[in-house]
């Protein structure tokens, strides 16, 4: 039902067009998000006590590759999330984190195959539920910052945007976790760590409309329309 004449609405909108701070470019916002998140991740890792073999791990190619892939997935997902809330971009940008994610998965899969070839000793799957709260804890502030930053954009595809945001935070959370959690068997990392990343990504996707929705935005505009 039409509330008022369109010309009148335009006049009211123009009267209420207070200057707004333009949203920075997506990659600039990604840099801002990292600047907010990195100190927190470093602090949580320091508080959880870094693993005793960290020095040794820093020269392990597989560990470094997986860490670079996890961090790249987080950064690519964050950039894609910030792009997804700006109208006019190609929607295929959501696929941006796929490349580093594939490298990450491939490295873990290759580790599993190697364990299988070596007799299957490294394929024992023990329960390690601590990964879920640990990744959630390391990724908590990055996730919160991401949600707040996404809400400044347009809720074009809420579920995709929040899934990307969740993947970014969980990727960063996993990157931090591996500096303090001595779990390196590929199958364990694949199931528990990667599993947690996917679980958190799915949860974020589910919360899409709770975080990003047109309705509160439009209600806010309507509320602020000064009667002419």
């Amino acid at each position: 039902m039409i509330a008022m004449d369109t010309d009148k609405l335009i006049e009211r909108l123009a009267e209420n067009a207070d200057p707004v701070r333009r949203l920075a470019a997506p990659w600039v916002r990604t840099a801002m998000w990292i600047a907010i998140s990195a100190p927190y991740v470093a602090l949580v890792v320091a508080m959880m006590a870094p693993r005793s073999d960290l020095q040794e791990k820093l020269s392990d190619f597989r560990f470094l590759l997986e860490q670079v892939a996890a961090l790249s997935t987080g950064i690519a997902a964050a950039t894609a999330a910030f792009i997804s809330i700006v109208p006019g971009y190609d929607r295929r940008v959501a696929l941006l984190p796929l490349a580093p994610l594939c490298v990450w998965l491939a490295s873990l899969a290759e580790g599993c195959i190697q364990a299988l070839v070596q007799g299957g000793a490294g394929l024992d799957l023990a329960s390690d539920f601590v990964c879920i709260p640990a990744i959630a804890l390391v990724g908590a502030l990055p996730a919160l910052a991401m949600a707040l930053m996404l809400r400044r954009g347009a809720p074009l595809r809420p579920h995709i945007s929040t899934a990307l945001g969740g993947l970014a935070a969980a990727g960063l959370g996993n990157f931090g976790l591996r500096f303090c959690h001595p779990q390196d068997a590929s199958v364990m990392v694949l199931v528990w760590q990667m599993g947690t990343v996917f679980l958190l990504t799915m949860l974020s996707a589910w919360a899409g409309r709770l975080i990003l929705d047109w309705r509160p935005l439009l209600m806010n505009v309507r509320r602020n329309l000064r009667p002419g």
Partner: protein
Amino acid sequence: MRAYERLLKEITPKLRQIIRRHRQFFTAEEVEDLVQDVLLSLHAVRATFAAGRSFMPWLSTIAHNRLADSARRYYRGKANEVQVDELPVTFAEDPANVEVESYRDPGELANAIRGLPEGQRNAIEMLKLREMSLKEAAIASGTSVGALKVSIHRAVATLRKALIKE
């Protein structure tokens, strides 16, 4: 005229065109409703427009996104509708099931509405005929919700008196 107002007025026909092309079965009123929805949406997210980028892809993405949303709302609404030939009676008692029209002579009612003072007539038109909410009607008429409530109360009383007398 402000630049922003000029811009919104210039893009409105384009928006109507986009909406009509995608919703050929929409009435003029429904098209206008969606045009206003897109205008409100782009106003809400105007901070996302970057000066160096093209305007039309930005506008078109918002318009198509709101069109898709309206389609979702439409089908959700349809899914919750139940088609019945005749509404079932609510109570067995006779007074609850009087099968007469509310007004026997719609022409008489229209005349009585036309005879109302302007404020009361506007209130009846917006709140009863166009079924706008009090808040929407208050924004459209530039009056307060309280004033509208008074107007509608007086209008109904005047109409009742006029119709009973006639």
